[in-house]
């Protein structure tokens, strides 16, 4: 990139208020952005990426303040410019696209009115603004571009809203757009459309952009250069291809390494399945969420149930555990039908199948110490007490790689996210089950932590001969850990079989769409997929 410098940030410090004290969020960030250039900003939760994006507009959220450094946009010193002057830049020369379009559009006004708001303030005629809006909607490949703008936000789907918001940001042909995780809340098959639309329009208008995300593969498609943040500081910055080919910092390398974990293929078992879901139809009220769902879970293996939101994958777990009695079909354990309602199952049966949840924060009672959290199942099911119970809890803590003496009397609030998820695993293990249902157990965690959890689950499976049912939307996780795969869409099983078969062509059409929509760490991936689809 050789264009003139558009945005120059030097030694930026931002602080956030915590009670009476101010804690640093950004600590000395430098950033240079040229005209027409796209800079990807990567970081885990809490790295300060959104704060950096907002600071590039001279903006700090309530409870935050820019405490030091220099922000120059096209020669204008944003730290010295009064609020009125910054307002004249925002929306006109610097625009912002938020993570959740559904929450960021005002529910009281039509999309096109919200689009036209800033153009009208700059003196454009309403008719012209609306015509331009329709043209942009068409460019963003929104369905019914003439008509969609006259809807209210709640009448439009999430992926379309995200594109409408990008169109709104484009309204005044800004020099710079800040994209703050614009596709994080979307399913993969929707994400790819939005990514393509955003990339094309940024290129066509030759707009500079800061693209904030936690997803390396996504940023590889969008950015010319990548900057990596960790706890408010820069780790490294490089050209996208250089960064992908030869990351320098250890932290960057560890981010790349996540994707490398995969376990070896294992031959398919011959004995009867441990758990068998047969023709299950279930739902709430009058609506069927599951329609005739069948699959097996063999002992000692990992079955991944994959699908996008609304596919019914979590509902399957509720049927198996007995929280949602099915309308039709049955669930067999060792060939014997399980009582449909968990309340009708004796403890010996409840013990067989344990659950690990997505959000460890809500899965662990915050008022109980680890001793009681992990000890309770052992106490209930195995009748342990006193010294035997204490010893068992310590064994379990050691098994999940936490030092028993320093952890046994802690509360969940004294643990990190990954450690909490480990406690969830230990609690499941305490019952000595044969099947563990893992419901999106890694999706709320940062990538490095995910890796650790997956390795731990794999180790436990080899040592204890557990079967896992792994519910996930993330195909990378499936590739890493599954033996067998069940693909679900709209409450039905699309395809099921050993991992090697599912991941090798020929695929069912939906599986094909799903697989091809997962971003890869190759900068040419998006272009390639779009070409192939046409």
């Amino acid at each position, binding site marked *: 990139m050789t264009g003139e410098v558009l945005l120059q940030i030097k030694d930026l410090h931002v602080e956030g208020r915590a009670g009476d004290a101010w804690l640093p969020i950004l600590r000395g960030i430098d950033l240079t952005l040229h005209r027409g250039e796209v800079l990807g900003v990567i970081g885990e939760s809490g790295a300060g990426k959104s704060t950096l994006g907002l600071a590039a507009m001279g903006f700090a959220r309530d409870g935050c303040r820019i405490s030091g450094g220099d922000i120059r946009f096209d020669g204008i010193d944003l730290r010295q410019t009064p609020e009125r002057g910054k307002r004249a830049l925002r929306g*006109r020369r610097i*625009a*912002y696209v938020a993570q959740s379009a559904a*929450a*960021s559009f005002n529910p009281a*006004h039509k999309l096109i009115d919200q689009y036209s708001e800033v153009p009208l303030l700059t003196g454009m005629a309403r008719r012209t603004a609306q015509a331009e809006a329709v043209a942009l909607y068409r460019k963003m490949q929104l369905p019914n571009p003439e008509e969609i703008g006259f809807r*209210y936000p709640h009448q439009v789907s999430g992926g379309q809203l995200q594109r409408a918001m990008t169109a709104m940001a484009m309204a005044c042909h800004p020099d710079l757009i800040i994209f703050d995780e614009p596709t994080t809340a979307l399913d993969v098959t929707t994400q790819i459309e939005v990514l393509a639309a955003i990339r094309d329009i940024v290129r066509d208008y030759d707009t500079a952009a800061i693209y904030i995300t936690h997803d390396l593969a996504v940023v590889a498609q969008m950015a010319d250069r990548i900057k990596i943040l960790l706890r408010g500081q820069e780790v490294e910055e490089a050209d996208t291809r250089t960064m992908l080919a030869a990351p320098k910092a250890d932290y960057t390398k560890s981010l790349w390494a996540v994707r490398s974990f995969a376990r070896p293929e294992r031959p398919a078992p011959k004995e009867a399945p441990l758990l068998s879901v047969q023709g299950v139809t279930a739902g709430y009220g009058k609506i069927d969420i599951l329609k005739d769902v069948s699959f097996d879970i063999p002992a000692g293996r990992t079955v991944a149930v994959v699908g996008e939101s609304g596919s019914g994958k979590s509902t399957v777990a509720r049927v198996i555990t007995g929280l949602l009695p099915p309308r039709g079909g049955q669930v067999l354990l060792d060939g014997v039908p399980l009582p449909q309602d968990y309340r009708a199952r004796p403890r010996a049966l409840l013990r067989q199948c344990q659950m690990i949840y997505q959000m460890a924060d809500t899965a662990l009672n915050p008022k109980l110490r680890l001793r009681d959290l992990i000890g309770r199942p052992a106490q209930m099911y195995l009748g342990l007490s006193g010294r035997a119970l204490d010893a068992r809890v310590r064994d379990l803590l050691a098994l999940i790689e936490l030092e028993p003496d320093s952890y046994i009397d802690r509360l969940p609030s004294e643990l990190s996210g990954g450690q909490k998820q480990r406690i969830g695993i230990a609690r499941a293990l305490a019952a000595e089950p044969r099947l563990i249902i893992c419901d999106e157990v890694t999706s709320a965690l940062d990538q490095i932590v995910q890796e650790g959890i997956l390795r731990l689950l794999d180790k436990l499976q080899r040592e204890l001969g557990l079967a896992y049912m792994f519910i996930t939307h993330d195909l990378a996780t499936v590739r890493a850990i599954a033996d067998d795969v069940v693909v679900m869409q709209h409450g039905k099983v699309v395809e099921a079989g050993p991992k090697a078969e599912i991941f090798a062509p020929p695929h069912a059409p939906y599986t094909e769409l799903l697989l091809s929509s997962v971003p890869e760490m190759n900068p040419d991936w998006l272009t390639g997929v779009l070409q192939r689809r046409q």
Partner: protein
Amino acid sequence: MHAVLVMILQRLALGVVTLFVVSVVIFGATELLPGDLASTLLGQSATPETVAALRTQLGLDQPAPLRYWAWATGVVQGDFGVSLATRRPIADMLAMRLGNTVFLALYAAALAVPLALILGILAALWRNSIFDRVANAGALSAISFPEFFVAYILIFILAQSGFFPSMVRLSPDMALGDKLYATFLPALTLTLVVTAHMMRMTRAAIINLMASPYIEMARLKGLSPLRIVLRHALPNALAPIINVIALNLAYLITGVVVVEVVFVYPGLGQLMVDSVAKRDIAVVQAIALIFASAYVLLNLSADVLSTLTNPRLMRRT
């Protein structure tokens, strides 16, 4: 529009059911007595004859559903029965007083609603400023004061020095100005108490609203603060503000009872307190029904109004 109409009709139907249940509860509360109302009212010294006479007079010899039916049909036609203490028709006793109480409540509402909304919105916009802190501490204190304390402080400061009358004497042919002057202190008392509640709720509602992502988006679009408030916050603030107003007007109903007693104001509240002391159950039931109906209707209209101002509900596809 169709869906909203159905929704509003549902709300109205629910309101009617609620009114019915409320009237049953108010009427049926006497059935909770372990013995029988007549003997309880007359006490242990009563002879069997007088008890029997009172029973007949109260209609206690008839089954409860029949008595309820007679009472309810009477009420709908404006006939509340006869007072046990004075033997006068209750409707006559209420007529004047109902008007007086409504006048006082409206007077207080007219002062309190604009004052509270302005203070609440300013406190929310200038959050954590000196103004906000002082307004908050003041409101918190005012909420904590019993109504009669506020009333007597006002009497002590304003009436004792002769600015305003501490006892309210109303006559039917009074001019509006005189009436407003005569009832200023009770209205002010109610205003102070209600304003505090309403201000706090308004402030909370606005702060909640200003924290939403679409307000941040509006700020990032470079809009002026005034435009953000008028165009982006206000249309969404109507529903919460309507609810706050309704809740506090309903609160006036309770406040009016004590305030009327302090200022010897000839309204329903004072009559109710007198009747409770005399255990004139017929009058208490009538007034309780009026207050409860007002309360139910207020909540109902708030419900309907906030439905009408909610864009998500109004423009369903």
